[in-house]
């Protein structure tokens, strides 16, 4: 890879993701892509495919084979274009990791199983892509399986996901008879010969498929004409409709997310992969087709459009970290300017200046040193200490690619290593995970001395515990999951607190008066309205510090406090006895005094739950949700299936998957993501108080 090639060639780059439902063949397809692009030289099968924990399957597979199929960004070449395949997390819990991968992609392949069709997880994956406006093409895989019905899946794409899905191919034979595909643009049949389907044989369309192909092509051209005046004109004036015209129109429709071209085949049987790669080149966007925004930190967080023109200051996002043999590898995508060996860049999060050492790019099996990463390209930096999601910029620029807002964890779990070796490995794993994912946090509990991990959901933590076991061979036992409750106040209350201590030595004196009141959207606001120096200016910061300290453990239940505004408007000091410490203590006393008068309540995380179930179990599922203090927002019937949307407290959702499975003969699926914090009902609050009292007693005895 030379730099001359890297420059001015962003139109020959595709940064894509492969999004898929578990068990729809993501690993197999990725593997075939790497094989056909000559990145790997032999095809192996995915082992132990049981549909459970497929994410882990692929990681295990990587280990066994020593290649990085699912590494953060794998580079390959096709038709003189460079394709970066970016790993999109396989689990469906909403985490920052998903958001970040989707930011780095310019386009995606949505894989669907021709038998299973669109299922609830495909819906989640699709929603995420829509949220980030990622243009995509669809690949209906497993057309060799019994029950394969690609056109039913296309209908589901339209009905369930609302895509303007248009077939680009029709299959030649189906199930065991799958022989190839008919390309509706070139109107030729493509067969895949050779041991691994590497030799394409292009022939005329078989007679029995000709009329269907003509009909489908007409539909395709019709749909494409919506996006091109040239094509519409050619059709109306009955001129020749060229392949280029059709491709250009479909590309236009795809880039604007108004059309989803659908391809089909069987990755496992090596059918349909090469035309799909052609489509990645022809239909998915290159970096300059996509508008990328950064946030200007100097200018009230106004969004700024980044430009890939040369000469602009560098802006890059670290989207994934990998612990390699020689230290930390930080994958970055450069959005503006370039980053070269020897450059000085700034990490926007902490303002630290960094000297760029080695700049590399990943191939499936090895890495290659390069000089520069240009805008639109993906590469990696070696030996740079950063967290995933950090933005790097040229000195003097203050733009960030990600918003600073990181949701607080809602669930925690204690983990205990079984031996010394596990303890060391666990520490390594925890340090890496918390760097990778800001929603995953870890700390040691002061009271119990246990290591606690926190995250956004049961599954979120399960995935990390599993990774700890598999990737770091850390044997750990986990405790019961605990919900991250919060406290807040519900009304305004005044305080007037004097802290006075005169028991020998230097005395302490400070009086703080004012009020606290509820505030929405922020955790804490402090306002100083003291006039006339009643509290000397040098002690105001100490007051704020004292109030802030009180927010960590609420006086009601010792849960973290949120949504409080503190206003101080009066006070008193003593010329000798007042000190920073005295005012901090006074502020803590004042907080407690005001807080208990301000009707404090406990808040709990409420999750958005979506269950997809066959209609016959609808009543049973609604009953299950109802028993769990769930509020059912609604039910949506879609043929034989029904989707229930509900909100339920996280504390009631532990073990829901097992109960759901047993009540629906394993036919229902559910997804859950954090929604908001809400006040717990009185009865539950009392229960929590009782539990806390019991625990305290146990500690005392």
């Amino acid at each position, binding site marked *: 890879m030379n730099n001359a090639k890297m420059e001015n060639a962003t139109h020959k780059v595709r940064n894509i993701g492969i999004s898929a439902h578990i068990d729809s063949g993501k690993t197999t397809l990725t593997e075939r892509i790497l094989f056909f692009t000559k990145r790997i030289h032999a095809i192996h099968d995915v082992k132990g495919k049981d549909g459970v924990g497929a994410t882990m399957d692929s990681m295990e597979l990587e280990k066994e084979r020593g290649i990085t199929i699912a590494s953060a960004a794998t580079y390959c070449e096709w038709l003189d274009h460079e394709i970066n395949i970016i790993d999109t997390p396989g689990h469906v819990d909403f985490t920052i990791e998903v958001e970040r991968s989707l930011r780095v992609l310019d386009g995606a392949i949505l894989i669907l199983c021709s038998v299973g069709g669109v299922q609830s997880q495909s819906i989640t994956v699709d929603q995420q892509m829509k949220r980030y406006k990622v243009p995509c093409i669809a690949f209906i895989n497993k057309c060799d399986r019994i029950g394969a019905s690609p056109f039913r899946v296309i209908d589901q794409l339209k009905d369930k996901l609302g895509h303007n899905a248009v077939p680009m191919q029709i299959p030649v034979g189906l199930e065991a008879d799958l022989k190839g595909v008919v390309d509706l643009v070139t109107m030729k049949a493509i067969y895949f010969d050779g041991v691994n389907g590497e030799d394409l044989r292009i022939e005329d369309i078989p007679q029995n498929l000709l009329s269907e192909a003509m009909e489908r092509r007409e539909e395709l051209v019709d749909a494409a004409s919506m996006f091109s005046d040239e094509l519409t004109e050619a059709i109306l004036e009955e001129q020749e409709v060229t392949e280029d015209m059709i491709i250009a129109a479909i590309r236009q429709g795809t880039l604007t997310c108004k059309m989803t071209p659908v391809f089909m085949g069987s990755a496992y049987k090596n059918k349909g992969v090469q035309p799909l790669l052609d489509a990645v080149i022809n239909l998915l966007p290159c970096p300059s087709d996509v508008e990328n925004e950064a946030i200007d930190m100097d200018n009230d967080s106004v969004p700024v459009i980044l430009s890939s023109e040369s000469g602009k200051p560098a802006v890059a996002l670290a989207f994934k970290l990998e612990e390699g043999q020689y230290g930390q590898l930080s994958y970055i995508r450069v959005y503006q300017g370039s980053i070269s060996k020897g450059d000085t860049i700034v990490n926007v999060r902490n303002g630290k200046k960094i000297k760029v050492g080695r700049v590399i790019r990943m191939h499936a099996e090895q890495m290659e040193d390069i000089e520069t990463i240009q805008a639109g390209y993906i590469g990696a930096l070696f030996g740079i200490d950063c967290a995933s999601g950090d933005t790097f910029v040229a000195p003097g620029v203050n733009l960030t690619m990600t918003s600073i807002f990181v949701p607080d964890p809602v669930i925690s779990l204690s983990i205990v290593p079984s031996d010394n070796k596990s303890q060391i490995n666990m520490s390594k794993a925890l340090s890496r995970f918390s760097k990778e994912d800001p929603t995953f946090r870890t700390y040691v509990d002061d009271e119990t001395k246990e290591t606690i991990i926190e995250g956004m959901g049961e599954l979120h933590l399960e995935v990390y515990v599993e990774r700890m076991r598999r990737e770091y061979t850390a044997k750990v036992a986990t405790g019961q999951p605990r919900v991250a409750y919060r406290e807040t106040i519900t009304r305004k209350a005044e305080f007037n607190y004097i802290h006075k201590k005169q028991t020998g030595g230097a005395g302490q004196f400070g009086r703080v008066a004012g009020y606290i009141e*509820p505030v*929405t959207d922020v955790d804490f606001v402090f306002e100083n309205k003291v006039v006339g120096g009643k509290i000397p200016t040098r002690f105001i910061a100490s007051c704020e510090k004292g109030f802030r300290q009180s927010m960590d453990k609420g006086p009601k239940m010792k849960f973290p406090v949120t949504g409080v505004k503190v206003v101080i408007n009066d006070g008193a000091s003593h010329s000798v006895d007042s000190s920073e410490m005295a005012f901090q203590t006074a502020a803590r006393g004042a907080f407690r005094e005001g807080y208990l008068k301000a009707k404090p309540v406990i808040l709990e995380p409420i999750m958005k739950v979506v269950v997809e179930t066959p209609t016959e179990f*609808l*009543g049973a599922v*609604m*009953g299950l949700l*109802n028993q769990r203090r769930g*509020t*059912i*927002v*609604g*039910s*949506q*019937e*879609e*043929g034989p299936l029904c*989707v229930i*949307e509900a909100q339920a407290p996280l504390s009631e959702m532990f073990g829901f998957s097992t109960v759901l499975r047993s009540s629906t003969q394993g036919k229902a699926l559910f997804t859950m993501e954090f929604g908001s914090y*809400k006040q717990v009902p009185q009865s539950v609050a009392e229960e929590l108080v009782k539990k806390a009292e019991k625990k305290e007693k146990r500690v005392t005895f």
Partner: protein
Amino acid sequence: MLKKELILQNPLRFMGHETDDILPEGGFGSVLARAGVGKTALLVQLALNNLLRSKNVLHISLDDPVKKVSLWYKEVFRHLTKSYDVKKINQLWEALLPHRFIMTFKVEGFSVPKLEERLTDLKEQNIFSPQIVFIDGFPFNETVRMPLSDFKDLAKNHSFHVWFTVRTRRHEKPGPDGMPAPLLDVVDLFDVVIQLQPEGKEIHVKTLKGGPADSEHTALLLDPSTMLITNNQKLA
């Protein structure tokens, strides 16, 4: 109190009805308009008014997914409450939600027996028992009389009343009494019929059946920017 103030703003009160419960048990009301004029918006206003009075509302949509229906409620509620304190609004919104249940069906997959099955499910498990049902997108075609009669029986048995949206079409001629075509054969089943009529830039709200005796209150408009009912004093 915010709740009370909002109840006072309810559209039916503007229409001059003495009480909001203008429909008896098993009674039918309908909102008629051409596509895109604001049927759903008015329906959601009526529903919100019932929610504010702590009545259990079942909203059935035969076109839109649950998310879209929820969004309608949020939008109309936001418009209704935009001049009030955010914290109070959020609390009120949370208090309303348990009284609302949304069901969506494909038009072809919807039938009265199916709805009855769902309702029995909900009632038996004590999950939800509607006091008023709003149904958006019910197909008023030639064969509508039978399902509507069944619906009426269901409504009587379960002690609720029903509001429908009815889509009218430009080319369909109304009956001699001005009743729009889709309701011509079934108007006897309805107690109240309200039509939204765009005239120039304004949308007029007209009561075609079951209106109050006092005709002073009939000059109402739907504000096209918020889709909320406004009392047009100029016209009154």
